[in-house]
């Protein structure tokens, strides 16, 4: 478990001032909030833990479309305070459920610095 995370790509969150355990815990918490947000705002007929964190949002994943895209962007802003400054950042963040979690964590960090 520990080894796995250690070898994962560098995360946006600084690990110097947070223990790994609390980071994992925090990330799990955000993941679950993101899952619940997706279920509510897109009317998904799924339980939160049925949504794999690596699920792709568009195409063959959750099968979302451009209308849902708009709704996720607004919900991220309203529920998490995530604001996208450019279209590229938005596209990157909406690639998968995990990418959304990364964006939320990054925004979190920015606002607490």
């Amino acid at each position, binding site marked *: 478990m520990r080894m796995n995370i250690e070898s994962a790509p560098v995360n946006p969150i600084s690990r110097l001032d947070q223990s790994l355990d609390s980071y994992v815990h925090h990330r799990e918490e955000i993941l679950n909030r993101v899952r619940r947000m997706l279920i509510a*705002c897109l*009317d*998904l*007929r799924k339980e939160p833990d049925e949504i794999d964190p690596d699920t792709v949002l568009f195409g063959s994943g*959750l099968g979302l479309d451009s*209308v849902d895209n708009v*709704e996720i962007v*607004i919900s991220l*802003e*309203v529920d998490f305070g995530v604001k996208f400054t450019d279209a590229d950042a938005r596209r990157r963040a909406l690639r998968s459920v995990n990418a959304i979690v990364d964006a939320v964590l990054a925004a979190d960090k920015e606002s607490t610095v």
Partner: protein
Amino acid sequence: MVMASSKEVPYMHADSTAVTGIGVTSALGTGCNALWDAIQQGRDGLRPIMRFSTEGFSSGLAGLWPAWDNLANGWDSVSSRPTAATPRVVEMALVAADEAWGQAGIEKSGVPRQRVALVLGTCFGERLEGFHTLTEAVAEAFGADGPRLTISTACSSSANAIGLARDLLRAGVADVVMAGGADALWPMVFAGFHALGALTTGKCTPFSELPGTTLGEGAGFLVLERLKQARARGAEPLALVLGYGLSADAYHPSAPDPTGSGIGRALRGALSDAGLQAADIDYVNAHGTGTAANDAAECRGLAEVLSGCDRRVPMSSSKSFLGHGQGAAGVLELIVTILAIRRGKVPPTMNFTRPRPGCAVDAVGGQYPRSHPVRHALGVSAGFGGANAVVAVGRVDTQLNVPPLRHRPVTLLGVGGVGPGGSSVDTLALAQQEILPLRGPVGTISLGAILPTADPRGMDPVTTFVTAAAKLALDDAGITVRGTMRDRAGIVLGTTRLPVTNCRRLWESIEQRGLRAIAAPPFSRNTVNSPAGACAKLLALRGPHSSVSTGPTTGLAAIIYAAEMLAEREDSDLLLAVAADEVGPPGGGGDISEGAVSVLLARRGGPIERETSSRAVPSIDVVGWGIAGPGCIADAARSAGALIDLPDGVLDVGGGGRQCLAPKVEDATSLPLGYAPVEAALLGAEATAAAWAVALAVRRLRRLEARSLLVTASGGRSAAYALRLAARQNDAEASHREGCG
């Protein structure tokens, strides 16, 4: 009036449909003269919105009716819901209707009031809820006491309404039909288009840069009558309505099918209905919203159908003058088209610079109309839910080579329904016999069990009911819609309101997050026809697509419109008529009972019926139907042929059916199977009650309890309907013998 028989009969009323009056209110003011003068002078009507704040939106422009410029801010400051100060759409509609009515001179014509019908198309009705009441208010102001029908297929509503009006005239249901539509621009609609990213920052530039639309509002009406009658009474025919076509994209709630094949099917339907070839078309008034998705799809659809002609045929978008008039767009643009035909000039697409990629058409660039004689023209409309409608109009001297119309017999192959407590047609029948009221919510439906391919994501309750009922009707008939059948299979929905749960979610998003953060997914499904659009996608029903709303008679209205289309049109083999109600969340303004009932209709002896020929149940034929003005249920029953061939019993909604066979039968209770008021068992099922009555009639006929039955629906101020069903004699005898043996 309409009278179907078991044999094909040549049509009684084969005559052209003439336009004898036109009236309009739009961004270019009040009246046709104001409209054409502005077009002639190269002056558009797109101006800054003063009616509500547009701060924070991607656009601040719209095509608004100038007469409402001084309106007080008529919207709730938190929710943007309409308040008492909100303008009433009926005002705008009455001004337009008055001009058309006066020009046609109907007052002096001597046409009886009961023979004057009104068909109105609207996307959002009177303040987002009154759909059939808007139509009734306009009809009452003019004493139009014939049928008052409301079509709500989003932005193609009024184009569909004009097509239906032509059908009513051709079928002899009325002698004069006022047809058109009306919609105002509400803050919610503006915010929804903003959320979808569909608004451009400046004035829209269809087929050119930059993509995006500008919204608008308005009302328009055409007075239609048979050409022969117009000439006989000395009225000046202004143009002809030659035909129309409807189709479904079966693709997405708000985005058009990018291949343009949905538009293509409606175009082909209109051409064949009008007896025109692609080469006959001299001008196309395009839907041309200006959005990247619409313009490219529309150009593809037109290119495919007009095959090579599309570069030659001028094709302009009047939205560059008027903005997108939503449900009224179809009629506003047909009025521009008729004025263009009469003046020998086609209007430009304003602000056109250079063609957008994928839009290599002659969009009539420049600021002024171009001299170009037009004999035949097409008006294209496309709406949310994938509802497409195309209307063909032409010069009065158009000589067409239309084959004589045939009234082909229609058969009923299947029924399916989900009702209160998950009830089916059988449980309802028991309840009806015992007079046990069924009311309330449907409960949980596992759509996956009925239709394994369904993705329930984003499906609101009423959409689930509609899809379940439609699939159950297909299963009942043993039919799977597949292959080329899909392009010739369609749906007609009957319902009285916007999808309740979805609508509630939309308002909640505004209340909680503000108008600027309105939720896009529920907005894209916030149209009356949206359940039909979703059902069409899931069941691949790509043919004729419509959605009617006539109050407590709505269920029968949908079934009769479907029967009428099968009897008289060439573009479909199979139509599902579905009626639906939804309770929705508390306080959501929904119905007090809910569910959906679907009836599967096809042509007798046609390709669909042949697929089901080995079935054990007796075949049920739709042997007659009638539509009449509100309260005139006896006229509807007579038109259905019920007085010539008395039914064994009457199933009724609204109470009017009891005396509808007078003077032949004073009280229907004296018929062998008597009189059954269906709503006693179905309290509060507004749209579905009359469709349940049809389902019950089918059940009794299949069980050989009766030879023929009449279903009637009246009540409300829209219209009265009668539908006559009969078990096919040979089948009934055969299965009776089998049963005895």
